[in-house]
């Protein structure tokens, strides 16, 4: 019986790769430097109905948008929705438009909730893609990646994750010393090539 911890012993390594790819993406896109190194903490996954809880109100105490993307070990697992990992991006609602404009994305209407959800998903997509590339460069097998799914405040049906894992990494990124971007990452064992 498995009570805690992670089967994936490379989780900390993956967290470093994730943080590095986010910092590089922000720098390359518009020379945005975060105020300090991201705070990365291991947290227990709260699971219900086989899915991971993702609640933006717990992160900011304000309305926020959540987008997630799943990773799979191969195309067959993807067809069966058997995820090996997930990236969940949280951005405070009042900051989504500012953040995307900083990253040089055009945003016609920053009060349109659907457009803001799409923005959060777009950012989640490029973060997840950059992270996947880092994983591949580090000698792990190539992962399959889902499209993004976005919600306001909480992921109503939860986020698929690898059932063997009980922990996730939560990385918080600061801009002008304010908490502006939170990314949760969970990842099961990914074989090396």
């Amino acid at each position: 019986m498995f009570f805690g911890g992670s089967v994936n012993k490379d989780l900390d390594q993956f967290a470093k790769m994730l943080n590095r790819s986010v910092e590089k993406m922000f720098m390359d896109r518009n020379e945005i430097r975060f105020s300090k190194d991201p705070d990365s903490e291991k947290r227990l996954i709260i699971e219900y109905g086989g899915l991971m809880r993702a609640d933006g109100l717990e992160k900011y105490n304000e309305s926020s948008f959540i987008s997630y993307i799943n990773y799979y070990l191969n195309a067959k697992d993807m067809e069966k929705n058997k995820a090996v990992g997930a990236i969940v991006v949280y951005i405070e609602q009042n900051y989504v438009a500012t953040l995307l404009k900083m990253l040089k994305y055009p945003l016609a209407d920053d009060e349109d909730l659907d457009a803001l959800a799409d923005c959060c998903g777009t950012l989640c997509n490029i973060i997840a893609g950059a992270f996947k590339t880092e994983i591949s460069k580090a000698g792990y097998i190539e992962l399959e990646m889902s499209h993004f799914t976005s919600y306001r405040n909480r992921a109503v049906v939860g986020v698929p994750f690898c059932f063997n894992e009980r922990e996730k990494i939560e990385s918080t990124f600061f801009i002008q010393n304010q908490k502006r971007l939170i990314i949760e990452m969970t990842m099961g064992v990914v074989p090396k090539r």
Partner: protein
Amino acid sequence: MADTNIKKILVIDDSTLERELLIEILKGSGIKNEFLQARSGEQAIEILGRNYKDVCIILLDWQMPEMSGLEFMEGVVKVPAVAKIPIVMVTASGSDDNKRQAKQVNPALAGYVVKPYEPEILVDAIKAYLK
């Protein structure tokens, strides 16, 4: 009056923001072509079916709901009427394996642009194919 000889660019991406960014960049670079937009592979097939004679290039995202960009491309390369339309992948998946995989599906793949991209990289990737 619109020039009816200018062909159209089909942009396929589930992110409205990414489609808008891409179109804004191309229009800003002086490209005069009209744009068709699809948010999924299925929608793109419908649009392509009605407009294939007018489309000069397809800009294609990879990760989309229901039918992915790769599945869409697998279908396109099997249909002679559309197989020769150049396709440029514009995707967040930038690993060498993914680039190889895309090239396997479509050996005539016209380009592969990784998001987020610099405007000139996108323009350079497609300008040779504009009609």
